[in-house]
């Protein structure tokens, strides 16, 4: 068992290194000279530009530059071109925001989609089932940022019951979940929105398949009532495919977080990335992109681990 997990983690390392090389290559073939972004090139002599390039190490051979970048990421010494803040501390400051939004999004999505999926799976072809099937197409076609804007207009401006921006009250210093909750409702809903019909559909299919299994008949014949059978026996088995879908959707969720953070002005990883991209602050963009890759790899490992928790039979294979 332990060997399996060590193997899995070892396999993930070359993937991440490959990802870092890909990012480095993209930045190398990108036109333009990052050094001219630090000062107005029209006021610089050629010598000054040369000096500037040497000072930030752009004149070194490419492998040296790559190794230095990677070393910088690992030691936490890689710094933003602009603010000189380490990218590590920028990411650390943004993690609570992005994680809480994605977490609330997943929880809201599960709370809504599981009952929906179970209800639809119990009666295939019913009205609810057909609505659900049509709902998937409609929901995945709806741009998240438009939904966010509409929600802000409705709940923040019209009704004035929820904050439109920020992750916590302005005077807050820590990340207190109770204080953050009102701030997380709208971003969480926008994050959950595309997930709901997708998860509900997977739950529905899985519930429908599981209901046909022998052990369900056994459970009924033991005299268990329908609720117990559905929630204790059917749903637990049906959760396996649902969990794997969440794993597949993690990259999508993180991508969605970029938009959600922009709409609700949340200081998360997505917003840092977009701002750094617009200002062409390469070290920051590079760090956040590689960090997001770590998250995707980690999410896949966690999902595989959860399989074993939900369905003990999988552990043995």
């Amino acid at each position: 068992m332990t060997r399996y997990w060590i193997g899995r983690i070892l396999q993930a390392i070359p993937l991440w290194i490959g990802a870092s090389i890909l990012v480095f290559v993209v930045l190398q073939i990108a036109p333009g000279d990052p050094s001219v972004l630090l000062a107005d090139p029209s006021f610089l002599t050629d010598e000054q530009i040369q000096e500037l390039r040497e000072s930030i190490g752009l004149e070194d051979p490419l492998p040296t530059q790559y190794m230095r970048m990677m070393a910088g990421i690992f030691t936490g010494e890689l710094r933003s071109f602009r603010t000189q803040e380490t990218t590590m501390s920028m990411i650390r400051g943004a993690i609570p925001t992005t994680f809480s939004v994605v977490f609330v999004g997943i929880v809201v999505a599960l709370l809504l989609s599981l009952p929906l999926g179970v209800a639809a799976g119990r009666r295939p072809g019913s009205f609810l089932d057909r609505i659900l099937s049509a709902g998937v197409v409609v929901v995945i076609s709806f741009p998240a940022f438009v939904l966010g804007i509409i929600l802000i207009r409705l709940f923040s401006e019209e009704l004035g019951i929820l904050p439109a921006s920020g992750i916590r009250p302005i005077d807050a210093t820590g990340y207190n979940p109770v204080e953050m909750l009102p701030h997380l409702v709208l971003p969480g809903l926008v994050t959950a929105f595309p997930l709901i019909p997708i998860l509900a559909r997977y739950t529905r299919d899985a519930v429908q398949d599981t209901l046909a299994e022998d052990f369900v008949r056994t459970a009924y014949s033991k005299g268990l009532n329908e609720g117990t059978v559905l929630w204790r026996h059917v749903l637990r088995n049906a959760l396996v495919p649902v969990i794997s879908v969440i794993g597949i959707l993690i990259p999508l969720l993180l991508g969605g977080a970029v938009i959600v953070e922009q709409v609700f002005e949340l200081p998360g990883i997505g917003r840092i990335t977009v701002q750094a991209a617009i200002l062409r602050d390469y070290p920051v963009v590079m760090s956040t992109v590689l960090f997001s890759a770590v998250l995707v790899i980690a999410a896949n490992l966690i999902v595989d681990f959860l399989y074993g928790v939900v369905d003990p039979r999988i552990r043995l294979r």
Partner: protein
Amino acid sequence: MNSRFIVGVFIIVLATVSALAAPWISPHSPEHQELLSRLQGPTGSYLLGTDNFGRDILSRIIWGGRVSLSVGLLAMVIAVSVGVLVGAISGYFGRAIDAILMRFTELMLVFPAFFLLILVVASFQESVRPEDRGMILVPMLGLTSWAVSARIIRGEVLKIKQRDYILAVHSVGAGNARIIMRHILPNIVSVIIVSATVRVGVLILVEAGLSFLGLGIQQPQSSWGNMVSDGFPYMRQAWWFTVFPGLAIFITVLGFNLIGEGLRDLLDPRSGKGRAV
């Protein structure tokens, strides 16, 4: 006939015709500013209202459709072509080639799509004039989104490769390229078409998202995404400025998704699971 397919085709034909016929059907010039009628609600002369420069929203949506649709379609062509090429070669030849190509595909999938795109767009956008952004966006979107298609195609090729008739054409001396082009790809054309249709919708959404973030199509060119973004600060006074371009994105993407779903049912009635992902 499948009703979803028909509705989808109707939407896309309407969107395409209005984009192509933009110079003749748009009521105003998309750039014409009527400063005295800024942020005007929908009226007889401005059916969908005006924006903060007094420009006609309807006309800008019609012209913006040219950008959104062509970026979506062209990027899809690149994404699906690369996807088919990688998927077919990987699935057909197997062994080392498969291993290398699939590791590379996994590499592309390790990045959340938006993060990779932001990196690429940020690196390249300064090298072109703002009005040419659309053209540089196409290869970027295409080259960052082929991995999903490649995986699907590879899986299909692996299935077809096992069939007896492939062995038969092999034994009569057909070359690899001929087998792939003439005997394998025609059998998975339905899978390719379905994934291509859905991909156009996804790419239109991604382009709109990037433009909304200020990284895609930029002013003065109108794209549905940057219209939504421009209207955002005016949401309180002028909801139409944001909502109508947003609806244009939604309806068009819905059209492509409906065609995709409809086609899937028409071409392969057995499949019904896992439509959305």
